[in-house]
């Protein structure tokens, strides 16, 4: 175990030494790779922020509660306290309106322009119902998940036939986020290949400039692993450095971006700020960057050591 660790420490030291000798080239490669990685990192940062914001958007959702057609008026009207109790558990700022079936029909006739068709029915097909508007509760917003909970509780009330939540906009947003997510995965995959390709080429040059060293090491009893490890570490270090710079670039880019977003949000009496990736996702991104560099190095070393014999 000690020997294994010592070999890895030696390989790591050799990799650092190689990087130090070609520090200018290393910096240039880090710049190229970090520019490549910055794009998916920025996309991820935006997506992460939008997802987080959309889950607690300040909206005044509407819930429509429909009674059964045969529910007597007095029983329908008597549900209001129960409805208020359920809804007010989430927000004190609630507007509950009882809509009689007559008023609903009148409204339908006015809005839809199909009064002739409705008149041919001879009867009013609409039930009594409630329209519930949930406002902000002392500045806090009610999440979509909580609205769905309220809907489920309302469905359990006696004589309630259907509860409809006005969630179209949330669904649209969720669909949009899914599209963004897919685009981001495609972008990250493509640019990940670019990182592998750039590392592949960088390591190729390193292998080719060290042909003599490799040959001598083989002659004095170096194993395949001993020869390859420094190049693997070099690839991983390249990826790690590029990932670190890319995260920094995205964090810096957020400063002017946030200023513009804040101006826009102020117009809607809101406050909005995009935050950089938090610690865990950042660490994950760095590990992925290092892994991409490592993969590029492995592919390059395998290919070029085979070619030089």
């Amino acid at each position, binding site marked *: 175990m000690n020997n294994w660790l010592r070999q890895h420490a030696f390989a790591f030291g050799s990799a650092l030494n190689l990087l130090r000798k070609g520090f200018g080239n290393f910096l240039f490669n880090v710049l190229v790779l970090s520019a490549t990685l910055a794009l998916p990192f920025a996309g991820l940062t935006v997506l992460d922020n939008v997802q987080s914001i959309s889950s607690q958007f300040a909206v005044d959702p509407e819930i429509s509660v429909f009674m059964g057609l045969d529910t007597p008026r007095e029983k329908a009207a008597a549900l209001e306290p129960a409805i208020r109790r359920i809804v007010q558990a989430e927000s004190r700022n609630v507007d509950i309106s009882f809509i009689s079936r007559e008023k609903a029909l009148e409204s339908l006739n006015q809005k839809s322009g199909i009064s002739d068709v409705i008149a041919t029915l001879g009867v009013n097909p609409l039930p009594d119902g409630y329209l519930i508007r949930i406002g902000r509760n002392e500045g806090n917003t009610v999440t979509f998940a909580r609205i769905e909970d309220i809907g489920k509780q309302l469905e359990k009330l006696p004589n309630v036939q259907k509860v409809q939540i006005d969630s179209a906009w949330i669904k649209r947003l969720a669909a949009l986020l899914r599209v963004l997510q897919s685009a981001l995965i495609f972008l990250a995959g493509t640019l990940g290949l670019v990182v592998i390709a750039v590392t592949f080429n960088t390591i190729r040059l390193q292998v080719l400039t060290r042909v003599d060293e490799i040959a001598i090491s083989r*002659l004095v009893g170096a194993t395949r692993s001993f020869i390859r490890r420094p190049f693997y570490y070099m690839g991983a270090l390249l990826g790690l450095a590029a990932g670190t710079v890319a995260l920094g670039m995205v964090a810096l880019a957020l400063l002017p971006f946030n200023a513009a977003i804040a101006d826009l949000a102020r117009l809607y009496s809101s406050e909005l700020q995009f935050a950089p990736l938090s610690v865990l996702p950042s660490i994950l991104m760095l590990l992925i960057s290092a892994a991409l560099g490592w993969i590029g190095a492995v592919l390059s070393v395998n290919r070029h050591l085979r070619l030089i014999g």
Partner: protein
Amino acid sequence: MIEFENVSRVYEGGITALKDVTLSISPGELVFLSGHSGAGKSTLLKLIAGIERPSSGTLTVNGHDIGRIKPTGIPFLRRNLGLILQQHHLLMDRSILANVMLPLLVTGELKSEAEKRARAALEKVDLLDRSDTLPAALSGGEQQRAAIARAIVNRPQIILADEPTTSLDRESAKKVFDAITFFQSAGVTCLIATHDDQFVERASRVIHLRQGQLTGTSSSLTPAVTA
């Protein structure tokens, strides 16, 4: 220790470098391989080092069958060999000390221990005062002695030297042979391929090769005996 049994080496295109060589080398011998260019001396050494494999026959080195040894086993075979080649094969961007430390570092030796042993090896070839020098600053003879220090630093059982004194003046060549014979006297088996017959009296045996075939062996003081 080293056993050749009807060993042949044929390159692509049908060029025969060694043909049906059978010989045995015992521990502690100092053997000279003699013959003109193209006689097969270097090929014989490359086969022992596992750089090449026999086309036919059986070659055993320290119990390893070179024809059958796996590629992963070759580095471990070489750790018991000290190779001194015609071109000194030193890393020109590293100090002499770093070059001599290399065989120890590849085995996972501690850097401090490797440095200690490398300095001891350099002292034996009278190069300790040049340990921090880059190879380019040394003469050809000094570079060859540095290569000898690197070859023996791992305390190998066998030293293989391919034309170690080519292009060296007599004084430098003598120092190189002095260094090699010093290790032979300490029990290391030494095989030296050379044109240089001025030090042949030091050999315990001379093996004569011609066009890939063993033409005879002799002790240093007796004429060649046809095989």
